[in-house]
């Protein structure tokens, strides 16, 4: 049906795309402050305004980082930390999704499980550390367990909340088209809870990095956290800062990868739709 309709005219003007220049400009703005700090700090140390022992200048941190990387130590520590986060995240996320789905879908399960989980959540997770060491020894298991606990709660809360808040009106659409329970779960519930679940996973991953530091501080012979303690014990401020920078980069990278991998799943949500 040909329609010289009003709405076709409405959709004609294309939304203005953000150009490479716009993006570059924005990134440049964000870089001003850190660059100023780096340069200021560096020159303060060089001109003798500040002492470099407790506050090593950026150049020295860079050298330390480079040396660590060149000797292969950095990679070993990064790997150790990454494996712990990955394992803890996997266990915590799977358990959190399972528990969240169960309590979100079945009221009885919610009444049984949720009060206990909420009570456990009220315990600051680091309080478990002594108990975990007592139970699980001082090797990898307690570390992974601690990280998993840290990841579990945000994922559980996020998934349960997402399921509880699925729009009943959309479920009725599924009923009108006579979907079976399984189809309803796959075609309506799952896509509806996906965005909130991914957000919860992101929060969980962030907490995973938070807890890996705690876990490694409780005693480790490798890992970025070990570099922190080692640096503290031998007054190597440059090593501490190098480890902190490595943590920041690693955390950001992990988050970026998670977002990139899950991006296609929530493309319908993008506020500015530029693809297609």
């Amino acid at each position: 049906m040909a329609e010289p309709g009003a709405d076709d005219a409405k959709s004609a003007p294309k939304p203005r795309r953000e150009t490479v220049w716009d993006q570059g400009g924005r990134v440049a703005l964000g870089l001003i402050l850190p660059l100023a700090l780096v340069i200021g700090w560096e020159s303060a140390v060089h001109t003798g305004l500040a002492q470099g022992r407790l506050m090593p200048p950026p150049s020295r941190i860079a050298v330390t980082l480079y040396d660590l990387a060149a000797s292969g130590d950095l990679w070993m520590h990064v790997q150790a930390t990454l494996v712990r986060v990955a394992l803890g995240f996997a266990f915590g996320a799977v358990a959190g999704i399972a528990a969240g789905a169960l309590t979100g879908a079945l009221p009885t399960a919610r009444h049984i499980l949720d009060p206990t989980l909420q009570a456990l959540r009220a315990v600051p997770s680091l309080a478990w550390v002594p108990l975990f060491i007592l139970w699980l020894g001082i090797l990898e298991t307690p570390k992974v367990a601690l990280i998993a606990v840290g990841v579990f709660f945000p994922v559980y809360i996020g998934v349960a909340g997402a399921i509880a808040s699925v729009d009943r009106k959309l479920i009725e659409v599924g009923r009108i088209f006579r979907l079976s329970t399984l189809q309803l779960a796959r075609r309506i519930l799952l896509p509806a809870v996906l965005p909130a679940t991914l957000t919860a996973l992101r929060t969980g991953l962030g907490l995973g990095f938070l807890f890996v530091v705690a876990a490694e501080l409780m005693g480790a012979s490798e890992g970025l956290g070990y570099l922190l303690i080692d640096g503290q014990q031998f007054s190597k401020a440059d090593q501490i800062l190098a480890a902190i920078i490595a943590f920041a980069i690693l955390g950001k990278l992990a988050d970026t990868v998670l977002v990139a991998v899950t991006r296609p799943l929530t493309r319908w949500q993008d506020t500015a739709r530029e693809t297609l």
Partner: protein
Amino acid sequence: MLTLDSLSKTYSDGTRALERIDLTVPQGEIVALIGGSGCGKTTLLRLVAGLDRASEGSIVLDGETIAQPHPGVGLVFQEPRLLPWLDVADNVGFGLSHLAKTERKARIAHALEMVGLGEHARRWPRELSGGQQQRVSIARAFVANPRVLLLDEPFSALDAFTRKDLHGHLLALWQETKPTILIVTHDVGEAVALADRAVVMRPKPGRLDDAIPLALARPRDPASPHSEAATRRILAALDRSLKPAQAAAPTEAAQWW
């Protein structure tokens, strides 16, 4: 043929939403349900759609009793209720997953063409205006070829121009397969523009009050004397349905309390 036989609905909180509704609609007729707020129009459609169960009475479509969603009955909600994670075409094809891909595609394309959205097939729902979204939801209901199509105030959120445009799309779709249509509306003009019969409902408890046949030729001119006469008759019936509530309601209420 759709037959509602002594259909009643009492909600779990005791609200008597429908009281012994009898209505027979031959295949292909367009019936407009009109009535004040709370007189049970949405309840009636939800029962016929099989989303809720009747307390008493029955709904029979061509000899089959309807107690749960039925493939021959489609429903357009008051809001578009599109699935935000599916694009326009996939929303329209939501109920067609049992069909082969080529057939499904062809049907979707045709339905979108019929509601004038052929060019927007790959858009997300949120990129459409309210009127466009409601057209998608009408296409989604029609594409399954229902024998009965239920529409609950589908155009009430739209401006008069868009509404008139959508009346045209709705009638064009209806012309193709001639489903039975029950459309709830607050707008007497809409009833006169679309329906073969206007059924006026009365609240507390919801009952059918009056039925006004609108045997007007299509396409209809709202300014024609016939249309104006029909409008006056419906308005008069609506007036009556609201006024004698004091006269009839107490005895009725006493009966079922």
